[in-house]
Structure formats: C-alpha cells, structure tokens
C-alpha cells in the first residue's frame, strides 16, 4: 500500500531549500552519482529528484535493460531562494554488470542487429560508469528491492566506494511492488545506510533526501 504525504507548497519549497543548504555546506561542489544494476530504477530516481528540484527530468526511462548506455549529467542543478543560489551536479550512470548477452534484448522486440549494437554500447557504458567513480563526491546505490541484493556488481561498487572513501546511501527501490523485500537489503548490508523508497511513486523520498544530508555533507 502506498502512503503519500503531501505538504503545503511553501513548506515543500522550504524543505528542499533546507536540504540544499545542508547538502552543499560551505561552497562544496557536489556530484551525486547514481549507481546500481541495469533496471534498478536509477533514471526514475534521478528524474524524480530533478523534477522535485528543478522541474524537469534528466533521462529516458524504459523497460529494456541498459536503456541508459552513457552517463547523463545534469550540471548546475540550481535552486534560487531568498537571494541564495545553490548549485550541484547529478550524474546518472549506466547499470554495472559483469556480463551482457545480446539475446536478452531480443525479448524486448529488438532485431538481432539492434540487440548486438545495444550490447556493444552497453559495454562502453559500463566502462564509463566505472571511470566516473573517480569523479563523484557522493553516490546513491540503487537496488531493486524485489531482487537478490547480494550480487557481485553491488559488492564491487560498495567495496570501491569504501576504498575511495566516497559517502553513499543504499536506496532500496520499488517498495511499491508486492514482492519487494527491503529487509533483505538491511540484513545483507547492516553497516550501511539503507532507505526504502518507491522512485516511481515518490514514496519515502523525503527520508532519502534527509539521509543524503547526513551522509554527504
């Protein structure tokens, strides 16, 4: 069941301004990277955030895995309020995987040539996403709460974030689906901050923004 809590408009605006102020701190330039498996909901969440904060989406959302095949960067996400201008970048990355089988794309109606082309592009996207780890200042690791969270891609991302001392929040996404089991994510990664949300419906995003303030400032 989805619980949507609506706030009066001026309170919502103040809430986001407070979030920005806390996120940015003292003139710190933030680059928030979205990482996770293909189809975990990274672009849906990035769209949700840019819609909340600047009123427009960052990228296309699709049912087909590896729809995001290159890094999308929304630079200078800015909010002006009471003469104060706040600025940061959102970086939506392709999903990280250890294998790509072009035959998986055939199920979504792509021709064999298109599927092979998409598979090749997806490999380049994964390389690009890994390279961006050197350049982000905070990460949202988006995990599909209906899937097994203990995958090599998730372990590799978390290990690299820890080794590079990059703060991160684990987002247990798709809690609106009946098979979602965010508790499994808590139990697998008990030492990390986990926030269950539905990026699609905007459920619990306020909690996520507050967790980002705590971890990223």
């Amino acid at each position, binding site marked *: 069941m989805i619980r949507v809590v609506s706030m009066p408009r001026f309170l919502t605006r103040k809430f986001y301004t407070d979030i920005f102020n806390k996120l940015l701190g003292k003139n710190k330039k933030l680059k928030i990277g979205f990482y996770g498996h293909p189809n975990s909901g990274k672009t849906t969440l990035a769209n949700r955030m840019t819609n909340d904060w600047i009123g427009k989406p960052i990228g296309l959302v699709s049912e087909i895995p590896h729809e995001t095949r290159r890094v999308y960067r929304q630079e200078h996400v800015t909010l002006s309020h009471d003469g104060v201008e706040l600025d940061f970048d959102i970086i939506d990355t392709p999903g990280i995987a*250890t*294998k790509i089988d072009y035959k998986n794309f055939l199920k979504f109606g792509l021709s064999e040539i298109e599927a092979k082309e998409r*598979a090749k592009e997806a490999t380049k996207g994964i390389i690009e996403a890994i390279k961006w780890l050197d350049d982000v200042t905070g990460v949202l690791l988006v995990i599909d709460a209906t899937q097994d969270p203990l995958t*090599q891609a998730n372990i590799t991302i978390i290990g690299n974030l*820890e080794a590079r001392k990059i703060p991160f929040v684990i987002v247990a996404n798709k809690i609106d689906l009946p098979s979602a089991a965010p508790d499994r994510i808590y139990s697998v990664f008990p030492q990390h901050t986990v926030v269950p949300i539905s990026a699609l419906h905007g459920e619990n995003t306020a909690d996520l923004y507050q967790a980002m303030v705590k971890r990223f400032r």
Partner: protein
Amino acid sequence: MDSNTDGLKMDFLSSTALNSHTSMEKVSMIVDRVKNGDLVVIEGGLSPEEEAELIETTMREIDVENFMGIDIYTLEKDKTAFFGLSKKKTVGITIIGPANVMKAVKKKSNFLSMIANLGDSGASMH
C-alpha cells in the same frame, strides 16, 4: 575449455602466486583464461579496485558472438581480529568463469553449488 578433451578446464591459483603479480597482470591473467572458456579458482579475493578493473577489462573483451562476460562467486570465511574479540568476514575463495558456462544453483555463506554448461553435456561442482 580444454581443446584436447572438450572438458571444463579449472585453474587453481594460490594467493602467493597471485600476489607476486601487479593488479593489471592479475586481471589479464584471469580474463585471458576465462575468455578461453576456463574456470579460475583463486585463494582469497581481489581488492575492490582489482574487481572494478576486472569488470572494465571484461567489458572491453566482450565479443557479442563468442564471449558475453564473466560470472564471479565468492565464499567467505570468518576472520578474528583485535585479539579474538571481534570477527569479520573475508573472502576465502573466488570463482570466476565465463558467463555462458557458469550457473550458480545454490549459494550460502559457506556453501556454493554450481552447474557448468558444456554444450549438450553438463558438469556439476559442489
């Protein structure tokens, strides 16, 4: 894949043998073997940076017709620290193989059961 027998070739690498190589050498040693159809079993694990490099190198080597990437599985073990007062998990064994050959059937913290696809025949490993 062993070309003489058409069987699954498995290489076991000790941590001592691996640690005498640089990260780049380790990664290319693994990818070369796996691309050839072999299964690599490593004592211990790779560092997070080496894992990222392994994924990156795999992506460069993917050939949509013949090599679709890798699968990695690890078995962890408890390691005591601070004079036996605290325990933490470390990687005991890492198994890396071609994605079209490896299929994990069952994985628990101390148990891994796998099926290797070898064309029409199949081999199981526990």
